[in-house]
C-alpha cells in the first residue's frame, strides 16, 4: 500500500511529494494552460467583433467563438487548473500518498476527452448555443456528452481529494486542523460537488431532449437548475483563488493569517451561502417570487460577500504583519512599498485581490440587488462583472502562482524572467479595462451577447449613445492588451518547459514558506494600520458606487 508509493523531496520547500501526485499536478496544470491559450484566442475574436469599427467575424462565427470562449475559459482552463490545485493542496501540503492514482489518471483522461470533444463539436458549427446553452436552443447531443464527461472527471478528482484527506488523517501525516490553504481547497471541492450534481441534473435530461427522447424542457426550470451549475462553477474559483492568495502570501512572505479562526469562519460562510448567488441570473424571471430572489441574493448572498471581505482584509493584513516583522514599520505603507514588486507571483496575486475586490466584488453586489439589477440585467455589464472576478481575480491569481509553481515542479528557471515582471501589470491593465468598459457600456444598455451593436440588418433599428460605441472600442483595445499578456504567459510557460534552464539552486521563497503553507496559528497582534486604511478606501468606493446606482435607477425608472 503506502510502501508502493514513490516520493521525491522538494529542495525548495522540503515537502515529501508523491510522484504520482506530482505527475498529475503537472499534466492537469499544463493541459489547463493549453486550453487557456485556445479559449483566450476565441475571446480575442469575440472582443474584436464587438468592437464596432472592426466587427471582425460574421454572425455564425461570432456565436461559435463566444461558445468556445465560454466553455474553454469558464470551465476547461479553470477546472483543469483547480484539479492541479486539489492534488497540490491535499497530497503535497499534507505530505500524504495519493490514494488510487490510476483513478486520478482515469479522471484526467475523461476530462481531456470531454474538453476535446466539446471543442470539436463547437467548431463543427452545430452547437453555437453559448456557455449557457439555454433551451430551446439545441446543440449537437455530443456537446452535452462532452460537458458531462468533463464534469464526471472533475467530480472523481473531488472525491480523490476527500479520500486523500482521509488517508492523510489516518496515517497521521499532519496534526490538528487542516492547513488553511488545504481548507480553502476543500471548500472549493465542496462547492464543486454541488455544482457538478446540478450540472448532471439538468444536462442529462437536456441530452435526452437533444436526442429526441424527451419532447420538452421547461425553459425556466432549465435556468434555475443550470445556474446552480453555471454560477456555482465560478464560486469554486472564488474559493480556489482565495486559497491561492493565502498560499502566495505564505510562499513570498512566510505570512500567516491575522486570525486563522476568522479565516475559517469566512470559508464556512462560502460553504453555506456562496452558491446562492446563482439566483442573481433569475432576478427578472416573472415566475419566481420576490422572497426567493431576495433571500438568495440580497440576504444570504451578502453573508458570502462578508466572507470575501474578510479574506480581502486578512490576506493583505497577513502580508503587512509579515513585512512589519521584518522591520518595514515606517508609516502606513512602508511594508507595501518594500514588497517584492519585481516578483510576478506577488504582483499577480496582489493585483488579483485588488481587481477581484474593487471591480468584480462591488459589481457583483450591485448585480445581486434586485432593483439595481434592472439597470443592467443581461447587458454586457454581466460579462464586465465576471471578467473582474474570473479573469482579474481567479485567472490572474492562478497565472501568478504558476511563476512559483512551475520552477518548483519542473526544476527549470522561468524563460525570460524580465518579461515575467511585465506580465501581471499588462494582464491586470487589460482585464481591468475589459471589465470596466463592459460595465460602462452595459450601464448604457448594450446587450450582453448581440453580434452587432449597430443593428445594421435589423428591421427595427436602435441607436445606442455614442459613448457606448466608444466604450466597446475601448473594450476591444483592452482585450488586445490582455491577449498580448496572455500570450506572453503561455509562451513563457511552454518555453520554460521546453528550453528553460535546468535549475540547480532553490527557488527564492520565504525561509518560513513551508511553515506558512502548512502550519497553524497567526501573526502577532492586529497591528495592520495600512491594511485597515486600504479596507476603508474599499468600503468608501463600495458605498459610493452602490448609491450612485440607486440614484441612476431613480432617474431611469420613473414610476411616480
Amino acid at each position: 500500500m503506502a510502501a508502493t508509493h514513490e516520493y521525491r523531496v522538494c529542495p525548495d520547500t522540503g515537502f515529501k511529494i508523491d510522484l504520482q501526485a506530482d505527475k498529475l499536478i503537472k499534466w492537469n496544470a499544463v493541459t489547463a494552460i493549453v486550453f487557456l491559450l485556445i479559449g483566450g484566442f476565441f475571446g480575442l475574436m469575440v472582443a474584436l467583433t464587438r468592437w464596432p469599427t472592426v466587427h471582425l467575424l460574421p454572425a455564425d462565427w461570432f456565436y461559435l467563438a463566444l461558445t468556445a470562449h465560454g466553455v474553454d475559459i469558464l470551465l476547461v482552463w479553470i477546472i483543469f487548473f483547480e484539479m492541479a490545485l486539489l492534488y497540490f493542496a491535499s497530497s503535497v501540503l499534507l505530505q500524504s500518498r495519493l490514494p488510487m492514482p490510476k483513478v486520478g489518471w482515469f479522471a484526467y483522461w475523461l476530462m481531456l476527452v470531454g474538453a476535446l470533444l466539446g471543442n470539436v463539436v463547437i467548431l463543427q458549427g452545430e452547437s453555437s448555443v453559448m456557455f449557457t446553452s439555454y433551451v430551446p436552443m439545441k446543440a449537437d447531443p455530443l456537446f452535452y456528452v462532452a460537458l458531462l464527461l468533463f464534469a464526471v472527471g472533475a467530480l472523481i478528482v473531488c472525491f480523490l481529494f476527500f479520500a486523500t484527506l482521509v488517508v492523510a488523517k489516518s496515517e497521521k501525516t499532519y496534526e490538528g486542523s487542516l492547513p488553511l490553504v488545504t481548507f480553502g481547497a476543500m471548500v472549493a471541492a465542496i462547492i464543486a460537488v454541488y455544482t457538478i450534481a446540478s450540472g448532471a441534473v439538468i444536462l442529462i435530461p437536456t441530452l435526452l431532449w437533444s436526442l429526441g427522447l424527451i419532447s420538452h424542457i421547461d425553459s425556466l426550470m432549465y435556468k434555475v437548475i443550470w445556474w446552480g451549475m453555471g454560477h456555482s462553477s465560478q464560486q469554486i474559483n472564488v474559493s480556489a483563488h482565495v486559497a491561492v492568495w493565502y498560499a502566495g502570501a505564505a510562499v513570498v512572505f512566510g505570512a500567516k493569517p491575522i486570525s486563522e479562526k476568522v479565516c475559517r469562519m469566512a470559508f464556512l460562510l462560502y460553504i453555506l451561502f456562496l452558491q446562492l448567488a446563482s439566483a442573481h441570473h433569475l432576478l427578472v424571471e416573472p415566475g419566481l417570487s420576490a422572497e426567493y430572489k431576495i433571500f438568495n441574493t440580497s440576504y444570504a448572498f451578502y453573508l458570502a460577500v462578508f466572507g470575501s471581505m474578510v479574506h480581502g482584509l486578512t490576506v493583505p493584513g497577513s502580508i503587512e504583519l509579515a513585512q512589519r516583522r521584518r522591520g518595514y514599520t515606517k508609516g502606513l505603507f512602508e511594508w507595501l512599498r518594500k514588497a517584492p514588486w519585481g516578483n510576478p507571483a506577488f504582483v499577480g496575486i496582489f493585483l488579483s485581490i485588488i481587481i477581484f475586490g474593487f471591480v468584480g466584488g462591488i459589481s457583483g453586489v450591485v448585480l445581486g440587488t434586485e432593483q439595481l439589477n434592472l439597470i443592467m440585467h443581461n447587458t454586457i455589464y454581466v460579462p464586465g462583472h465576471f471578467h473582474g472576478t474570473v479573469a482579474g481575480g481567479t485567472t490572474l491569481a492562478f497565472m501568478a502562482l504558476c511563476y512559483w509553481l512551475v520552477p518548483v515542479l519542473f526544476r527549470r528557471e522561468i524563460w525570460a524572467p524580465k518579461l515575467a515582471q511585465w506580465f501581471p501589470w499588462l494582464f491586470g491593465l487589460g482585464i481591468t479595462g475589459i471589465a470596466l468598459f463592459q460595465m460602462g457600456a452595459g450601464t448604457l444598455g448594450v446587450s450582453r451577447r448581440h453580434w452587432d451593436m449597430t443593428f445594421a440588418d435589423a428591421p427595427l433599428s436602435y441607436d445606442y449613445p455614442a459613448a457606448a460605441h466608444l466604450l466597446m472600442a475601448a473594450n476591444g483595445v483592452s482585450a488586445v492588451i490582455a491577449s498580448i499578456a496572455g500570450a506572453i504567459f503561455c509562451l513563457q510557460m511552454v518555453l520554460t518547459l521546453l528550453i528553460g534552464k535546468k535549475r540547480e539552486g532553490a527557488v527564492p521563497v520565504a525561509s518560513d514558506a513551508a511553515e506558512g503553507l502548512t502550519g497553524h496559528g497567526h501573526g502577532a497582534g492586529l497591528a495592520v494600520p495600512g491594511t485597515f486604511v486600504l479596507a476603508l478606501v474599499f468600503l468608501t468606493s463600495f458605498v459610493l458606487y452602490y448609491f450612485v446606482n440607486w440614484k441612476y435607477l431613480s432617474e431611469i425608472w420613473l414610476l411616480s
Partner: protein
Amino acid sequence: MSELESGKSGGADEPVPFMQQILDNPFILLFLGVAAPSVLYTVWGVMEVISIPVAQ
C-alpha cells in the same frame, strides 16, 4: 514563539471547541455545502416553477 504567535491557547488535554470540531470534519462540511444550496436555491426554486399555474 509566544503563545499568542503560535495561536495555541491551551494544552493538549483541553477539549476541542464545538465549532472547531465542525470545521475539522470535511464530511459535515460537505453535507452542509451540498444541503444548504440544494434546499435554499434548487429545491425552493423548482417548487416555485412547479407551482406556476398552467395557462388555460
